């Protein structure tokens, strides 16, 4: 058998850069790895010495897509460090904006990054020719999600109103009611999204692994909860290091994570597997329509789980608005600095999986130390383990087919890789 060498530089359509390297010799896999840039190494350096009130605003800039997610994990870490308990209204407003960001991210991933593969086209641009109504639908959902985030967060793309212990800007009842109507109207687009996902040719592949997600007894957990795994382990967020166990591996500049097995998976599929029983009935129906059942061990179906979560987020956003309107919005002031520092971890489920922030704050209210573990970093070892199983199953296929499968696998994880430079490349013509 001919040797196969695949070196996909800069996997396209993932958030940032990633290189896939595969070497097969005499029918045996010699090398199989994913090179990826991970969490900015200067995370601690950029927070050290800053007032605690700034952490969420700075860290929300790490990722253009998970701004609310980073802000929320940051706020929860700070609040835990300072022993500040957010009010019921704050919890509801955070849930609502979180649903907006989840919807925003998932719709982009499913429609613009995954669907082109499934339709056999190189990107969303040619997809417009085949399925223009689907792309317009995606933009319509994205607009609703963006407007939801702006209404609660105070501004498009950056949630400046989110603060330690509360909000600095509040939506009024009319704005909330208008959003509610748009969410109700979006049910048709959700149904169409489920139908689209149903027609996509999902690759047939599976590999058992451990799935890790936050879990709560009273809801499908996105913010706070207990770290829970499908192998039966559970830990409080403050013990996150017992799950992540970050370690250096020889072939990668990024640290890998593992729990009891060689790897674990986080993200929509992990949440679905851990929290299936907490989904809204409409989301459970969507899962049934897609043939998705826990425990699903096909990583390609992470994108299908995202579709199920989109349905859930629309329904729960409607519920949360009803609660907010029912109780009435109060212009709550922010809690003062308690006068004493401390250490705390915060966690939430951002679109790509469980995210941890961990801060030490001094008695002067300034950050002394900070740590952050992003979902993609936790998934690296699992993606490689999938690749090692996937490649031998496709060895009889043409090299281009293997390359595409590998790229699709990496994209299925929706990796968010340090959100690298986005600036324009311009050629004057």
């Amino acid at each position, binding site marked *: 058998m001919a040797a196969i060498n695949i070196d996909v530089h800069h996997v396209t359509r993932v958030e940032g850069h990633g290189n896939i390297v595969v070497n097969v010799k005499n029918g045996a896999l010699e090398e199989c790895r994913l090179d990826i840039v991970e969490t900015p190494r*200067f995370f601690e350096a950029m927070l050290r010495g800053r007032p605690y009130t700034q952490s969420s605003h700075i860290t929300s800039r790490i990722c*253009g897509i998970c701004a609310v997610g980073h802000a929320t994990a940051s706020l929860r870490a700070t609040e835990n460090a300072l022993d500040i308990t957010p009010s019921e209204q704050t919890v509801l407003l955070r849930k609502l904006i979180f649903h907006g960001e989840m919807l925003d991210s998932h719709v982009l991933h499913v429609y613009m990054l995954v669907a082109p593969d499934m339709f056999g086209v190189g990107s969303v641009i040619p997809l417009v020719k085949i399925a223009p109504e689907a792309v317009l639908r995606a933009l319509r959902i994205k*607009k609703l999600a963006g407007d939801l985030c702006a209404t609660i967060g105070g501004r*498009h*793309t950056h949630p400046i109103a989110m603060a330690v212990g509360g909000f600095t800007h509040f939506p009024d009842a009319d704005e909330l009611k208008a959003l509610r109507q748009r969410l109700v109207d979006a049910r048709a687009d959700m149904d169409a999204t489920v139908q689209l996902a149903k027609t996509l040719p999902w690759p047939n592949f599976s590999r058992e692994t451990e799935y890790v997600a936050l879990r709560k007894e009273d809801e499908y957990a996105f913010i706070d909860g207990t770290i829970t795994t499908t192998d039966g382990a559970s830990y409080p967020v403050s013990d996150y290091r017992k799950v992540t166990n970050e370690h250096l591996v020889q072939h990668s500049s990024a640290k890998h994570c593992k729990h009891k097995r060689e790897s674990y998976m986080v993200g929509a599929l992990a949440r679905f597997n851990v929290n299936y029983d907490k989904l809204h009935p409409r989301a459970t129906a969507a899962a049934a329509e897609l043939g998705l059942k826990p425990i699903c061990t096909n990583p390609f179906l992470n994108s299908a789980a995202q579709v199920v979560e989109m349905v859930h987020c629309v329904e729960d956003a409607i519920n949360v608005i009803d609660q907010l309107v029912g109780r009435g919005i109060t212009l709550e002031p922010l809690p003062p600095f308690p006068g004493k520092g401390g250490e705390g971890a915060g966690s939430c489920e951002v679109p790509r999986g469980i995210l941890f922030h961990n801060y030490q704050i001094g008695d002067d209210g300034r950050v002394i130390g900070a740590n952050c573990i992003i979902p993609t970093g936790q998934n690296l070892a699992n993606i490689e383990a999938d690749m090692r199983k996937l490649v031998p199953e496709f060895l009889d296929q043409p090299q281009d087919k293997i390359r595409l499968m590998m790229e699709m696998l990496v994209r299925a994880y929706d990796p968010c890789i340090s*959100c690298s*430079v*986005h*600036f324009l490349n311009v050629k004057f013509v």
Partner: protein
Amino acid sequence: MKPTLVLGLGNPLQRDDGVGIRVVAELERRTLPPHVEVMDGGTPGVGLINLMEGRARVVIVDAAEMGRQPGEVVRFRAEDVKLTGSSARFSLHRSGVADALALADALGVSLPEIVVYGVQPAHVEWGESLSAPVSAAIPGLVDAIIQEAQSLKEQSDGQ
């Protein structure tokens, strides 16, 4: 909604990539014509299409790899240049502007009149400080954008 939007784009945690955001922060301290709104757009990716919706004119300020000297500012219209990074390498963060415009074009979405102020970056790795030449370009850039916004108003008044 104000007809003219000045939109700063970029990530201030990636050194010179944040120049658009710094310019917006500076513009927010200045007195602007009443028809002009200034917005920190961050890195919106294809969300840029939604941010521009309903505007007559959009002035984008962003770091742009143009093969020029660091800090050099070039004003151009989107249709005057080839914005690379689209289609073959569609990503939500890389070249978000190019991808968004290509997608809008493919969909036949009508866009406002777009003027881009591109600033040639020197450093775009993680970090918060601007390079000296990019930092030095900001005052002139701010003045130019205020003049631009004013002239756009005069143009529309004359129509």
